[in-house]
């Protein structure tokens, strides 16, 4: 697994001769097997950060590196889970999950093994031959997550993956992701605007402000989580009842609100 390194990253848009600074001086390091969530209001540039790590966008200043290599283009070593799922509608669940493995040149037997493992893990058993349009939103995102995990990528990049799901499915998915992350730890960069989600899932939270997008504060959640043993609770609502959780959540909210009166959404 690897480190994601944002070094003095800048992102400037030029339109009609006017300059618009989307990101300014972003410095962040995601350690090996660390789950880092970036929270911030809409338009603060958090998704842009993820897309730069993915190679789907490029910084105008500074560099983004993964595993000490500067990112220039997308690839299966930096797997992405998109908010809009982005599963190929014309391929079955199995074929969707398999697609990246074929690019990697993994042989047929190994592909089968890996796909079956993650299909089981994500509760997709029996749906291998289904098409995405036959599945619910939650199921589709499970496929997308399986598709990303199966690549055994260096880093996992998740762009508000539960944003398109209804509230109840969202909670279920959060619980599953936590279980998955504890079982198969990976380096993850997770983008969300939902504070609770970030506090529940992450080892560290990066709070960003917008216009221009910069890092306001980085909060260590892991130490609190381990000290307070949140993981002994199976259910998300029990974790969210913990005073330490509530306190942390309020802290992040305050950071987000207090932005010179700027709106949050």
């Amino acid at each position, binding site marked *: 697994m690897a480190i994601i390194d944002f070094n003095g990253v800048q992102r400037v848009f030029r339109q009609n001769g006017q300059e618009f600074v989307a990101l300014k001086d972003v410095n962040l390091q995601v350690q090996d097997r660390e789950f880092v969530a970036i929270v911030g209001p809409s338009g603060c540039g958090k998704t842009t950060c993820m897309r730069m790590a993915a190679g789907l966008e490029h910084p105008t200043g500074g560099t983004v590196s993964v595993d000490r290599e500067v990112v220039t283009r997308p690839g299966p070593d930096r797997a992405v889970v998109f908010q809009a799922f982005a599963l190929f509608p*014309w391929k079955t669940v199995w074929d969707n999950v398999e697609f990246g493995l074929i690019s990697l040149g993994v042989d047929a037997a190994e592909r089968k093994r890996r796909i079956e493992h993650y299909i089981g893990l994500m509760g997709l058993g029996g749906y291998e031959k289904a098409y995405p349009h036959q599945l619910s939103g939650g199921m589709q995102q499970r496929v997308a997550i399986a598709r990303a995990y199966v690549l055994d990528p260096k880093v996992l990049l998740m762009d508000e993956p539960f944003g398109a799901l209804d509230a109840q499915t969202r909670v279920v998915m959060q619980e599953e992701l936590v279980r998955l992350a504890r079982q198969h730890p990976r380096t993850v960069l997770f983008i969300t605007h939902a504070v609770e989600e970030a506090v529940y899932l992450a080892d560290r939270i990066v709070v960003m402000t917008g216009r221009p997008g910069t890092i306001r504060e980085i909060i260590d959640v892991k130490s609190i989580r381990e000290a307070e043993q949140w993981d002994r609770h199976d259910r998300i609502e029990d974790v969210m009842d913990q005073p330490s959780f509530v306190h942390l959540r309020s802290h992040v909210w305050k950071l987000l609100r207090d932005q010179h009166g700027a709106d949050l959404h």
Partner: protein
Amino acid sequence: MLQPRLPAARVATLTFLGAAGFLAFWSAAALSGMTSRDFLPAPWDVVRRFAQLVVEPFAGFTLFEHLLSSFQRFGMGFLIAVAVGIPLGLLMAWFPWVDRIVSPAFDAVRFVAPIAWVPFAALWFGTGIGGPVLIIFMGAFPPVLINTYRGAKNVDRKYIEAAQMLGASHLRAMTQVLLPAAVPSIVAGLRISAGLGWQSLVGAELIVASSGVGYLMVKGQAAVSTATVMSGMVAIGVVGILIDVALRRVQAVIETRRGL
């Protein structure tokens, strides 16, 4: 549309009246004796001639043999147009440099009506099959290329990004992502293309053929046998409809498979 739908019985009556009125007018003109029955045949003369042509050869072949000849040329021209148009459209959509090279050449040529290629077709192929095939290709190719290109270009960006993230090679990206995503547009293009191709065929056969249903009509015209010419027109119309119906079925099948 403010007017409510007419009851089915009324529609049937009006339709019948319209058809009957037309046929009555036509028959009256034919029977009036103003001109010879060869020049202006009655409707039933045309039907009879059509039946005749099915069994008796005219200008060398029976009606179905002529149709087969025409359809073969159409098939070849259409298939070549598809075989060249779809890959080229995908390549142009994926590789900007291919687009830059091909677009100007294509734009220069596509405004030339297919029929205008007849002189060159005659020059290069004489009355061989190459002539009509070339003209059909010129008619059928632009819609295939344009619709493939547009369909591929308009693929939702998220699928392209997913394909790139998953490390797809250029070939896999074009065949497994771009092509399936562009299928609705491509199939719509195929329908237009088939229509234009079939029409261009008729024009070509009027000039550079020695068989086929267009040739049949030219010979009918030379013999001043309007009934023959009209039989040809009917045959052309019917085949044109059949081709479109077939492609519409294909379109429907594809759409249900994709869950659209």
